[in-house]
């Protein structure tokens, strides 16, 4: 037995629990709209949307000539959702569909925290869909782009049929605190931490 493993058996710190207050409104469970039959929705998106994008990318059609708009740039997505992009009327061409890979690793949690709120506050009708684990590499392959934020926003009249099929399987976004605030009970949680076992050495000379 090595010295390191022996050292691990000898306790140097103890586990402690600190009470912390969670956000009463925006817990992860209620932020994202629930998707029923997620696998079917994902297959539908792959066959209708992603294969089409792949075919257009393979044919080297310029992005401006695509029949549907696609973007993975975070800043562009945000400006479209916030209605800041007044020069382009992309968002008015048809419904918006926002695909989010929130279950994949490598997607920032701070960034994801903003998305449901932005979608809800958007002046346009945005359908937010959370994708299953492993969707991010598939999107990267099909679009031939990095898609670093794990977000894909599409718009255009051609999406209408896809959206009507998806809409029955996705719950509408539910953020009641943005419309009518009602008092929520205190959401207390315990945070696991550690503290040293040994007491601090008293100052010398103090009697």
């Amino acid at each position, binding site marked *: 037995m090595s010295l390191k493993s022996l050292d691990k058996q000898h306790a140097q710190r103890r586990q402690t629990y600190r009470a912390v207050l969670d956000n*009463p409104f925006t817990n992860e469970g209620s932020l994202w709209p629930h998707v029923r039959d997620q696998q079917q929705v994902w297959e539908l998106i792959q066959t209708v949307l992603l294969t089409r994008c792949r075919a257009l990318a393979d044919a080297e059609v310029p992005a401006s000539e695509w029949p549907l708009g696609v973007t993975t740039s975070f800043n562009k997505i945000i400006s479209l959702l916030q209605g800041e992009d007044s020069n382009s009327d992309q968002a008015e061409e048809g419904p918006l569909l926002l695909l989010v890979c929130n279950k994949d690793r490598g997607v920032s949690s701070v960034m994801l925290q903003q998305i449901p709120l932005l979608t809800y506050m958007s002046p346009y009708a945005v359908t937010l869909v959370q994708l299953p684990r492993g969707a991010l590499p598939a999107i990267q392959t099909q679009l031939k782009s990095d898609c670093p934020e794990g977000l894909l926003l599409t718009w255009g009249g051609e999406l209408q049929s896809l959206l009507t099929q998806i809409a029955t399987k996705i719950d509408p976004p539910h953020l009641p605190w943005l419309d009518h605030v009602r008092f929520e009970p205190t959401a207390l949680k315990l945070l*696991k931490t550690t503290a040293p076992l040994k007491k601090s050495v008293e100052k010398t000379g103090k009697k």
Partner: protein
Amino acid sequence: MKPMAKGSKHVENGVLLTPPPRNIGNKEHFQRINHLYQLAVWHTISGNDGGEQALARLYAKNMDSVSKRTRAETLPQLKRTICKKCYRILVPRKTMRVQTNLGCLQLVCSCGSVRSFPVHMDRGYRCHAERDENLISI
């Protein structure tokens, strides 16, 4: 992982494991903070407070003072929704703008202060309090 029995002691990686406490002391401080936060949100959302959101900011500042004074901590997810400079509740399209700049996520408050999160350094990073294994619901 099995729940630990009361009085049982187990050492793992040099840490003496103990069961979680059944009660939490000073619950009223957390309740006060929770109430102040919800008041601040309500005044921000309802918009009956004018563009300056003076009352909402007052509640949020009071909440921060109570939290610091009583050492009643809040999770980072909650703290990220409050501007550190003017104590506005950050709601997109109302009091905040979101953007990325050189890979950093920036939350720009309507007071002008910018909060940067360098997400490009490690995209999968989650702080200690954000990891599910470190949080226990009561």
